[in-house]
């Protein structure tokens, strides 16, 4: 797979602008019902990992899912419509932001049960192995999720059976309001791989190129039949857990520090220095993305609501 750095930049920027819009809508309008959880500051993980994936590769996502969905090629219009609760959304309004499934692009499950997706990823990877298909599963989850029993059982099984799955742990320093050292004594969550005889590596999650390389290596390992890898992406959640979080526990200096490590600014600077990107081109990228976001909002806004009784559909086959 050829690495197109401009596409990486575009992908991260798309996630950033899409989620900025979600935040704004959540804070300033009544369009979004319930919680709104975004990944601002963490975009490099989704984009870098997403860039190594083929259409047949599978993603299992968690509550902080928009980046994973967009990086896998999901349609912003259908995501936005789902978040608005409209009938045209990916899941006809049954999911909302927290459980979007986009089988069209093989994001087969977004679960908001923390850790709940990890055993499922073992199942999808098992199916690839069983059918001898050359695809992999990526399972995204947080540092907090790695404390759940489901993490443990799943990684043990995946390793035992050499399944083609990449466990992408986004360590964004917080699990809810708990800092990492408040929820575990382990220094690097990647070290948990030792407990399963699995390789565990630590990667700068704000450097999208390193994210890409690490995911590529893990994917190759999967495809060669050697089994799973646990990758800990060190990154940071600029905002609170959700938009209703006042971040009382998150030091301002810490936030500022990490903002200086913005994954988008970092890649942008590199690309400008390398002469791959000019200011004008960047501006054009921004414009295209912003326009697409606006179109998504427009689409969602103008879409019809589901009928109340539609709730009765889609349960059994």
């Amino acid at each position, binding site marked *: 797979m050829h690495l197109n750095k401009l596409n990486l930049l575009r992908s991260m920027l798309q996630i950033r602008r899409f989620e900025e819009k979600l935040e704004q809508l959540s804070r300033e309008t009544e369009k979004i*019902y*319930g*919680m709104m959880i975004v990944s601002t500051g963490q975009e490099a993980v989704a984009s870098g990992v997403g860039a190594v994936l083929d259409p047949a590769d599978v993603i299992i996502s968690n509550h902080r899912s928009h980046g994973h969905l967009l990086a896998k090629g999901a349609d912003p219009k259908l995501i936005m419509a789902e978040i608005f*609760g*409209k009938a045209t959304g990916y899941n*006809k*309004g*049954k*999911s*909302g932001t*927290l*459980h979007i499934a986009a089988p069209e692009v093989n994001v087969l499950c977004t*679960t*908001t*049960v*923390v*850790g*709940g997706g990890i055993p499922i990823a073992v199942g999808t990877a098992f199916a690839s192995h069983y059918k001898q298909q050359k695809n992999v599963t990526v399972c995204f989850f947080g540092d*907090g*999720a790695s*404390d*759940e*029993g*489901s993490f443990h059982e799943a990684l043990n099984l995946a390793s035992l059976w050499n399944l083609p799955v990449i466990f992408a742990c986004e360590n964004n320093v917080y*699990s*809810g*309001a*708990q800092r990492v050292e*408040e*929820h*575990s004594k382990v220094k690097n969550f990647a070290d948990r791989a030792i407990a399963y005889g699995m390789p565990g590596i630590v990667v700068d999650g704000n450097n999208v190129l390193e994210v890409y390389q690490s995911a590529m290596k893990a994917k190759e390992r999967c495809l060669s039949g050697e089994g799973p890898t646990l990758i800990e992406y060190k990154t940071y959640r600029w905002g*609170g*857990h*959700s938009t*209703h*979080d*006042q971040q*009382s*526990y998150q030091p301002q200096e810490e936030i500022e520090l990490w903002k200086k490590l913005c994954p988008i600014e970092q890649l942008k600077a590199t690309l400008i220095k390398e002469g791959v990107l000019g200011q004008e081109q960047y501006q054009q990228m921004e414009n295209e993305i912003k326009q697409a976001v606006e179109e998504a909002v427009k689409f969602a806004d103008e879409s019809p*609501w*589901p*009928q*109340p*009784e*539609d*709730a*009765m559909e889609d*349960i059994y086959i």
Partner: protein
Amino acid sequence: MQNLTLGEAVKQALREEMLRDENVFVAGEGIGVGIHNNPKLPTHGLLEEFGPERVKDTPVSEAAIAGLAVGASVMGLRPVVEIMFNPFFTIASDQIINHAAKLRYLSGGKSKFPLVVRIKTGAGIGAGCQHSHNLEAWVAHCPGLKVVMPGTPADAKGLLKTAIRDDNPVIFIEDMILNFIPMPVPEEDYTIPLGPADIKKPGDDVTVVTWSKMLGTALNAAGKLEQQGISVEVVDLRTLAPLDEDTILKSVRKTGRLLVLHEATRTGGFGGEIAALVAEKAFNQLKAPVKRITAPDIPVPYSKPMEQFYIPNEDNVINGIKSILG
């Protein structure tokens, strides 16, 4: 009298019990430092008052939280632990069902497990089916547990105090919508026994048995029907286990008609138990078929029109009662 939301009433009970008995401690995800800095929430401010030795923020690990309660309680402490949302109870369920509920029995009555598990529940918050899923029927089906589901802040305060002082494991389920509706709550220290149902409104024509958030729906419907000359008796169970058979049966024997109302899905919901009880023991006084008003048999959908369709409402109750009256 003070006006409190259910969350505030729970907090008052927790605080007073922690002051009263130093063996009481609380533990759970985000109960000390939380992502919501909101005084309406049940554990807000406890960390500041009681410190980190008695207000324990835990990692995201529901089995460990429940096991913590089981182990601490057999040693004489009185843990009050929180499971953030009812669907996550599944992860704690081995500890609760196979251990908290059974270990006293397995000890031949030698040990006791005075623990409380608080669980947030309910639809209407736009969080979808992995946050909203009422599973009280699971715990009410498990001998060894007591199950409390208050419908008002005042009941919540008195029942939680009793639950904490009770020597058995108690599951205490709080509907989140009630965290936003202030109601009068007595200021003094009082307890309400686990067991007795409460007739929240007396009436003659039909008995409505309900609990938790649906109490409000039942009372609103009863109020409207009163104006139409239909007299509804509203029985608020408050505790599903122990179940107050007498109050239910007495009421139905009087009115001759039963409607059971709960938010959980219909099939296998605890409403079946109530209906069965009446069909067994008050059959001869029944003048009409019993009726259940419940959520339909689907997961809680996210989108508001569908979510509202899911939650039983006043009109459903009114129509249900009218259909019973024929």
